[in-house]
């Protein structure tokens, strides 16, 4: 394993499987009445969040605390950052405080790469701009594996705003590493022009792809995108690319539905699909804590405290 987890593409197959297997072992901790291990006692994990993301932050916070790490939450809002302090100065401050790991969420693609050049601790990317969100991909893979068994040869369809999605980028890289076959489905405006160079298939036709899918992952689509002419209207988007009841019926009986959240119910996914027994959406949240425990455990646990 690398010292950092910045891109899902940095994970070799063995690394990825080690994280998933470790998470499987740690999952039992979450089922105990006392959900705590002493592994990271005395280690400090900083949650450095430059964007509001309560779900991701509390997931990392819970993961670190279950491993007995000390957790410092650093929100950029109302702090020195909003007064113009640079990312570098923030990094040096955290360094001086002795952070063993920094979990960073930032609106600028590549911010975790830059951070990693300024701090000695491990950097965990909790979402950077429109680049990557590797722990989301790991928890998605973990959720798929639990439902489907293995990932080798499984057909995963990812639908929505791929162009702006860090979830899609990380998932394509990780699922490819793990041997799954990924198909991206989106209107052409919401795919990068270079998507043909990615290790996946691409389609504009959701109905054609659904019957062949083991997993259908719906991405959040921001309604504001239509103001920049990515699509004409919410209704048209929903008609062509939304997972409604009729489309859900076209999926194989054992196929599952995923969504990284937060959802636009009625836009990219119908409420009854999101709430169906074949939806993993709530499990994904629980699995998020487990997978982040595994990541922190493997990045930090190997060193002496």
């Amino acid at each position, binding site marked *: 394993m690398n010292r950092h987890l910045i891109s899902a593409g940095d994970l070799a197959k063995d690394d990825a499987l080690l994280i998933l297997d470790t998470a499987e072992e740690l999952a039992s901790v979450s089922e105990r009445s006392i959900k705590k291990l002493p592994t990271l006692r005395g280690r400090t994990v900083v949650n450095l969040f430059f964007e509001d993301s309560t779900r991701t932050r509390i997931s990392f916070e819970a993961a670190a605390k279950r491993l007995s790490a000390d957790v410092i939450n650093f929100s950029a809002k109302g702090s020195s950052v909003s007064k113009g302090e640079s990312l570098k100065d923030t990094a040096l401050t955290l360094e001086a405080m002795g952070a063993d790991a920094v979990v960073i969420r930032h*609106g600028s693609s590549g911010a975790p790469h830059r951070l990693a050049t300024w701090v000695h601790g491990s950097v965990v990317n909790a979402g950077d701009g429109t*680049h990557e969100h590797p722990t989301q991909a790991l928890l998605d893979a973990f959720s798929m594996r639990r439902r489907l068994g293995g990932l080798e040869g499984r057909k995963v369809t990812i639908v929505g705003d791929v162009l702006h999605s*860090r979830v899609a980028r990380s998932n394509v890289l990780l699922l490819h590493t793990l041997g799954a076959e990924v198909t991206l489905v989106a209107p052409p405006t919401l795919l990068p*022009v*270079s998507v043909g160079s990615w290790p996946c298939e691409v389609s504009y036709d959701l109905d054609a792809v659904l019957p062949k899918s083991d997993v259908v992952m719906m991405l959040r689509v921001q309604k504001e995108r239509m103001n920049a002419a990515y699509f004409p209207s919410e209704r048209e988007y929903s008609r062509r690319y939304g997972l409604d009841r009729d489309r859900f019926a076209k999926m194989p009986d054992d196929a599952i539905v995923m969504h990284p959240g937060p959802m636009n119910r009625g836009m990219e996914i119908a409420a009854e699909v999101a709430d169906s027994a074949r939806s993993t959406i709530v499990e994904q949240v629980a699995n998020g804590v487990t997978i982040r425990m595994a990541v922190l455990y493997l990045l930090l646990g190997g060193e002496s405290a």
Partner: protein
Amino acid sequence: MKIRNVRILGGEPVDIRIADGVIAEIGPGLEGGEVVDGGGAIALPGLVDLHTHLREPGREDAETVQTGTQSAARGGYTAVHAMANTSPVADTAGVVEQVWRLGREFGHCDVHPVGAVTVGLEGRQLAELGAMADSAARVRVFSDDGKCVDDAVLMRRALEYVKAFDGVVAQHAQEPRLTAGAQMNEGVVSGRLGLTGWPAVAEEAVIARDCLLAAHVGSRLHVCHVSTAGSVEIIRWAKSKGWNITAEVTPHHLLLTDDLVEESPVGAYNPIYKVNPPLRTRADVEALRAALADGTIDIVATDHAPHPVEDKETEWSAAAMGMIGLETALSVVQEAMVETGLLDWAGVAERMSAVPARIGRLAGQGRPLEAGSPANITLYDPSARTEVDPWAYASKSRNTPYEGMTLPGRVVATFLRGRPTVLEGKLV
């Protein structure tokens, strides 16, 4: 004064005798006078840069006329054109005269201010182009560089208007709507990195329009920092029509590619590689080199763009765009064009001295090294190999993309009208 043992454009060793700032005599074994030993260096006519950001007035923390012209002299330049995007903008006779006077005062090289095309670079109203042309600075090159004159009517009028004083509009070709929030070349790398793309078509569409406009009104047009293979094709076509169009390429677009943003010795997403127009692909680099060799692209211009450390030591999207380049230009051109066999030293002199002087209408610059020419001379040792150390430069800023690379060649000496501004690689 006599410069002994130099090889003009790489030819046979000769001596050059200078009197009253003018080349008096050239030949082997000349007699007498104070002697500077050329040590067999190549002698080129003093280099002329059509595209330099000196940052003064307004951003003296990044560069000043003094440090910028020192940097130019160290790079072998005897004249630079100072871009207009200062603060205040160089859009009046007062500002251009101030920059011009500062250049004269320090005397490291000639400074020719570029005038803004529109008031405040805002693209709404023509600046007083005639007043700048008639000022002591005698402005002939006009540009909103950093911004594109994207309004077709305004561009047409500017092209027409400057004909009255033999001026030229130098366009920064960038369609603004196609490049809103753009961070790097749109392609394979931007898609993987999740950075907003700057598509080639945003440059090419404006160049095509401007060539057609220039042809329609019979004006000359200069295209700044051409960066794509498609732009080369359009310019080649426009020139084949006989239209009066010139174009420049920067040293960095002749050498560097966009995959450095993803993978480089200085780490991924390092804004040292953030520049506008962005670094493109290997295919673009090859097309630009071929175009510079065959004359489709007329000149090399540095787009020397100094920025203080804090404007580059940030996350990618927050960083300033631009690279310094005056002190590495000749070395990069040697690496990209001479070592590859695409240009000889006569070709380099043409593209880095004679033609830029002609485009800028500088009578006393870019003249061939022969008796009677002003003694603007650059001595260059192409056999040297130097690891790039940003701290070794005269520029106030350190934002060079070549840090750690080993580049060929070294400017040994620079003479401005017979007076050395650099000797043995050091400022005089």
